[in-house]
């Protein structure tokens, strides 16, 4: 090539060269593409190494026409590798779930593997795991969404196969506990297209029933697989009435079970959960009936008590009797007063007589009546001859009178 005679070489504007880190950043940016995030890849394990730190490094390769058609480097960090249920080996056909990342220091990209399953069944397991994450992010399994079952449903919708033991069991239990209207929305319960059938069977019941049972008998993981499908899960979530699930045996938990408002161990158990027991209801009603009668009887008895009390209070005889009682009381009191008074008077009389006798016995005039007399000098009783002298005027008192005398002589009896 004639480098020197290229005519337009000077006219092309020269781009500033990128720095390596800038290019690396652009590549990293491109790797953020959703097509490379949280993906499932199937391939053959090659160059498998179990690093001392617990990380696993390997390649996933695909063979085509005898040659290797493509290889992707993979890493599984220790935290994820610890959950592996088997030891991957060279040539093993696996399905991995992970995200593609660029690793700038090595100038390489790799698939960061979160989970690995053996191909075959593993594919479906991984798919379920992926759906589970996706649906959980949508809030399909959140406990806040769960609704309470109606206490008294009028109609029960059943999404299941028209034939088989499941519908028979549900009919039997509902018929025994509380016979009501069952609306069967028939569906295929396994097979490639079953998920569509199931979800439209659920949707078909909208507005017709108060509660829905989704049931299927036991089966393998693959048999139950349609009940993991997002179409079915979303149909359950958007169902306007509560949904009870009874899918497979108790140990098999499908995504439908996780999304249902309530999970039952068996179809019979689901039937028991959705309808009340008529015998229990009848017993409750009987109890209320007894209580109602008792309440009225009590109320009437109370009213009787009230009336008889009022009647007693209104009766004139009763009032008169009260009056008589009062009168009697007054008479009694008056009697008592009189008796007490006369007793007291007698006592006083007796006392007075005694006192009079005592007084009489001490009356000096009584002595005088026996022949004695009292001599007084200027109002004082003369008791001794020493107190008088010749010429004293004295008064002699007799029992019946007195006399004025003058002393002529006084004789003393000194030998006394």
């Amino acid at each position, binding site marked *: 090539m004639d480098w020197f005679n290229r005519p337009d070489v000077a006219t092309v504007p020269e781009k500033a060269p990128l720095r390596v880190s800038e290019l690396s950043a652009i590549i990293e940016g491109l790797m953020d593409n959703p097509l490379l995030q949280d993906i499932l890849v199937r391939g053959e394990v090659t160059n498998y190494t179990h690093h001392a730190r617990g990380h696993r490094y390997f390649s996933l390769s695909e063979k085509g026409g005898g040659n290797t058609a493509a290889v992707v480097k993979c890493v599984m960090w220790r935290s994820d590798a610890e959950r592996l249920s088997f030891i991957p080996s060279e040539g093993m056909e696996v399905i991995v779930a992970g995200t593609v990342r660029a690793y700038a220091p090595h100038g390489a990209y790799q698939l960061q593997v979160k989970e690995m399953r053996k191909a075959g069944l593993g594919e479906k397991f991984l798919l379920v795991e992926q759906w589970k994450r996706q649906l959980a992010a949508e809030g399909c399994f959140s406990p806040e969404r769960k609704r309470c079952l109606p206490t008294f*449903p009028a109609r029960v919708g059943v999404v299941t196969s*028209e034939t088989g033991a499941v519908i028979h069991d549900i009919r039997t239990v509902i018929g025994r506990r*509380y016979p009501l*209207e069952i*609306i069967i929305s028939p569906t295929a319960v396994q097979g490639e297209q079953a998920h569509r059938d199931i979800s439209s069977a659920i949707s078909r019941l909208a507005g017709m029933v108060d509660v829905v049972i989704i049931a299927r008998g036991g089966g393998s993981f693959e048999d139950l697989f349609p009940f993991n499908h997002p179409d079915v899960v979303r149909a359950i979530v958007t169902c306007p009435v509560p949904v009870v699930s009874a899918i497979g045996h108790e140990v098999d938990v499908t995504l439908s079970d996780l999304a249902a408002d309530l999970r039952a161990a068996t179809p019979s158990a689901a039937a028991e959960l959705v309808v009340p027991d008529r015998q229990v209801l*009848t017993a409750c*009603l009987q109890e209320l009936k007894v209580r*109602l009668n008792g*309440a009225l009887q009590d109320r009437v008895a109370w009213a009787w008590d009230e009336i008889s009390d009022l009647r007693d209070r209104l009766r004139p005889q009763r009032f008169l009797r009260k009056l008589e009682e009062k009168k009697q009381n007054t008479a009694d009191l008056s009697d008592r007063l009189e008796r007490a008074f006369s007793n007291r008077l007698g006592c006083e009389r007796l006392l007075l007589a005694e006192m009079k006798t005592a007084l009489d016995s001490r009356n000096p005039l009584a002595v005088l009546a026996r022949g004695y007399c009292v001599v007084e000098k200027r109002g004082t009783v003369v008791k001794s001859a020493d107190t008088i002298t010749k010429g004293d005027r004295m008064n002699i008192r007799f029992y019946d009178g007195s006399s004025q005398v003058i002393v002529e002589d006084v004789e003393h009896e000194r030998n006394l």
Partner: protein
Amino acid sequence: MWNMKETYETKIEQLRKIIEKIEDGNTGLDESIKLYEQGAALVKQCEILLSEAELKITTLSRDA
């Protein structure tokens, strides 16, 4: 087909309220007797509802 949710449940609820009112000492005799009559009627209706319940099976068409 009666709607059990709207009839049985409300009837039982009404019945409970009636009993509570009669049991409450503030309700007069006249009113208590009227309430009793209402309560007795509700009991009767509930008994009928329970005894008349019968199993009915409908199968939806899959093409709907």
